[in-house]
Every structure is written in structure tokens, then in C-alpha cells.
């Protein structure tokens, strides 16, 4: 009776070895991923990589800029420097302007040279008297 029960139990199950064989077959029969899926996964990898490199390049630029500003003397110094440069350019590139005061002085000087002898008014009278 007990033997019959054992036989019945055995009949109701498959042995572990067979289960393991079935698992091995299932592993071997596993279908490979579709080529389109693999292409999409690889493209994702390339896209994520490109974005990461672009971000890294952007981040690499900032410390260099900050270092340069600090070397100059800070943001205030940089603003002053930029202002000076701008004024320098403005002076350098703006059209020359006429200066009437200076022009007038030149005319006056010419009159003085022509009509005012170097010796002054008294010297002129003395020389006329001598000639007369």
C-alpha cells in the first residue's frame, strides 16, 4: 500500500533532472533581440554620450573663464578694463573735430608777427624818428 502511494507520488511529478534539461532547452531556445531594437539601443547610447560630452565641454569652459576674471582682479576690475578699452576705441576711431579756439589763436599770432615788431611800440617810434 505504501509502495503504491510512493509510485503515485512519483507519477504525479517529473524528476529534477528532467526539469533541469527543460530549463537548458529553454535557455538555448531564447530568441535573440531584433536587429532594429539593438540599433535603437545603440543609437540611445550614442545620443546620451554626445549630450554628455557637449555638457562636459561647456562645463570645462566656465572654470577657465572664472580663472581669467580672478587673474584680472575680479568683476569690478574687468568692468573698468572693459570701459577703458571702449573709451580707447572711441577716441581712436572717432572723426577728428575742428577746434575754432586754436584756429583763432593762430590767426592772432600771425597778425602779431606781421604788425607788431619785436621791440614793442616804443621801439617802433624810435626807429621812425631815426629814419625821419
Amino acid at each position, binding site marked *: 500500500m505504501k509502495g503504491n502511494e510512493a509510485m503515485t507520488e512519483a507519477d504525479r511529478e517529473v524528476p529534477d533532472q528532467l526539469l533541469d534539461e*527543460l530549463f537548458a532547452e529553454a535557455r538555448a531556445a531564447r*530568441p535573440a*533581440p531584433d536587429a532594429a531594437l539593438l540599433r535603437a539601443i545603440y543609437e*540611445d547610447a550614442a545620443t546620451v554620450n554626445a549630450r554628455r560630452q557637449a555638457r562636459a565641454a561647456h562645463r570645462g569652459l566656465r572654470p577657465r573663464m572664472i580663472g581669467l576674471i580672478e587673474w584680472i582682479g575680479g568683476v569690478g576690475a574687468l568692468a573698468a578694463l572693459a570701459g577703458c578699452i571702449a573709451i580707447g576705441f572711441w577716441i581712436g576711431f572717432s572723426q577728428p573735430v575742428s577746434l575754432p579756439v586754436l584756429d583763432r589763436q593762430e590767426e592772432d599770432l600771425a597778425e602779431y608777427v606781421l604788425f607788431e615788431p619785436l621791440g614793442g611800440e616804443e621801439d617802433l617810434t624810435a626807429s621812425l624818428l631815426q629814419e625821419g
Partner: protein
Amino acid sequence: MVPSDGAVPEDDALLARYAGGDLEAARMLMDRHAGRCLSLARRMLRDETEAEDIAQEAMLRLWKIAPDWRSGEAKVSTWLYRVTSNLCTDRLRRARRQMVDLDQTAEPADDGPSVQARMEAGERVAALHQAIAALPERQRLAVQLRHLDEMSNIEIAEIMGTSVEAVESLLARARRALAAALAGRKAEIGFG
């Protein structure tokens, strides 16, 4: 770029190389793991298109985490499987909620042949997949990870967020259930 001594690079090393811009390393990681992620998703979701979405999403998360990956803290394969499993679980929950919303509360029959079972050749393998599909969810996941993806009990415990002892218990119960389920199909599977 394979090391000059011919050794197969570890996943951690490949991920570090990818983080440094090496796309060949990404291809190697993809060849190693995409198929397994897809298999796991297929078995959990039984929908080829959704399984492909999940596999792609899991791999995308790996690409994104690459620069922050801490070597030695977790295995890439374990991490990927956990992500895949969680993504599948989320999707199944969403699908169930939608079913409830639509007042279609009938659960899908678990014992029907899965997509994978139909796709894979051979009555024996199909019979096994049908038997696996009929297992309770956690037993099913444990047996798939252990016997189809050949992961260690420690890795399975990490993926499932449980103890190794609990995994052993799940596996023991799952094997007993499978043995009983397949006993009725001994002729089909070429036994007896």
C-alpha cells in the same frame, strides 16, 4: 578595445569606458545584457512590443547612469535586471488599473501560452513556459531569474528586494509546482 591580455572586460570597466566616450564598450554591454533584459520583459509582460520598449528603457537608464556608476557597489547585470523588473511591474500595475477603470476586472488567464512560449520552437519548451506562466508572480520571477537567466540566489534576492532564504523558498515551491504541472504532460515533454 579588448585588453591586450585577451581577458574579457568586466561590466564595470566597460561602463567606465562608455562614460569616457567609448561607444564600442556600449556595444559590448548591449550584446551582453539587452537580450536578457528583453527575455525577462517578455516573460513578465507577454507582449513583444512592450517588452522591447522596456528593454530599451532599461538600457537607456544604464547609459544615463554610467558617469555616476560606483564600481563595486552593485553588479551591472543585477542593477539592469532590477530596473527591468521594476519597469515591467509598473507597466503591469498600470495595465491592471486601466482594466479596472474599464470595468473589465477579469484577470488575464495565466495558464495560456505566452508569446515567448509560442515563439520558441518545441513542445517541451512551450510546455515548460506554460507551466512557468501559471506560477504565482514572485515564484515565476524567481524561477525565471534562476533557471533561465542563470543568476545566483544572491543576485535574485537583490533584484527582488528580499532575502536569499526567501528566494530559496520561492524556488523550492516553484520547482515543486512545475514538477506537478508537467507531470500531466509527460508524453508531450518526452518523459515516461
